[in-house]
């Protein structure tokens, strides 16, 4: 029994040490909020088209019955990281044939139209979420955020923040492969 007690400090040290190791992991983002949407059907929303753009808006119904996964990106012209992310998303669309839908979050239609005119429009559909209500339905905490939605309308993946930089692009590409939007080794 006394030998067992002698082991207790070691046991405590191991448990506390493992906790510290987990806490110090540089790949862990302590600000990450687990999304309730993953593996759930996409939320109910209906967004009209952005005035001045020739792409249609979309609703939940447009996310089901597609022949492959669709990427839903929440963006705004006032969002600086979105500008950096824009070329990455355009690359995924042009190079890999990813289908990209956009939720234009709390943005003036004229600003959004000018922004896309300047940078080019990779989006197949864009819905105007001027009130930010659809954003709440999707549980976003800010822009940009990017979701991968399966052909049956199930949310498969969520990326918070801009998909910019090698690490982010690698993470997101991996998610696309997992969602079978991309084939292994592509991109």
């Amino acid at each position, binding site marked *: 029994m006394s030998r067992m*007690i002698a082991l*207790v400090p070691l046991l405590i040290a191991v448990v506390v040490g493992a906790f510290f190791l987990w806490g110090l992991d540089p790949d862990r983002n302590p*600000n990450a*909020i*687990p*999304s*309730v949407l993953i593996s759930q059907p996409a*939320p109910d929303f209906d967004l009209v088209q952005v005035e001045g753009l020739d792409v249609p808006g979309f609703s939940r119904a447009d996310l089901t019955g597609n022949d492959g996964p669709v990427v839903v990106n929440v963006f705004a012209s006032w969002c600086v990281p979105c500008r950096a992310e824009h070329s990455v998303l355009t690359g995924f669309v042009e190079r890999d044939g990813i289908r990209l839908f956009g939720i234009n979050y*709390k943005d003036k239609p004229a600003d959004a139209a000018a922004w896309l005119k300047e940078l080019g429009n990779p989006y197949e559909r864009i819905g105007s979420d001027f009130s*930010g*209500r659809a*954003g*709440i*339905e*999707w*549980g*976003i*905490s*800010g822009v940009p955020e990017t979701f991968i939605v399966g052909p049956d309308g199930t949310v498969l993946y969520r990326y918070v923040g801009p998909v910019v930089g090698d690490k982010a692009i690698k993470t997101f590409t991996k998610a696309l492969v997992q969602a079978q939007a991309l084939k292994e080794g592509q991109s």
Partner: protein
Amino acid sequence: MRIFLVLVVMIAGLASTAFAVEPDEMLDDPVLEARARVISKDLRCVVCQNQDIDSSNAGVARDLRLLVRERLVAGDDNTEVVAFIQARYGDFVLLKPPFKPETYVLWIAPFVLAGTALIFGLLILSRSRRKSGKTLSTEEEAQVDLFLAEHRKRTAE
């Protein structure tokens, strides 16, 4: 006088930072508004985490405050409003974590740890008491007497 004015302005500035709820958000019905304030004090802002949406100036916090009021006006009771937001943002938005299988460790661990500490503490205490209760055998007594006698002899010299 001027210093007094400056102080007044500074103190007023301090007070205003404590209120994120803007007048245009407030409901006309004081009862509903009071309920909205209570609910939003228990909801966590998803941008500036560890701040409740009642005191946060973030855009999403404002949207959520408006949503809380909208649900209240629609006739939801307090738990329904919280459930509505929880369905979209998860348990994370609750400043007080719910008691369910995923959080059992969180809620129960302090009691288990305190209990373990208490048990070990009592065990060690009782053991040391038992040790001190032991008596010496006659041979040991004799040995002690021998040592003491020798010590006395030496100090007397």
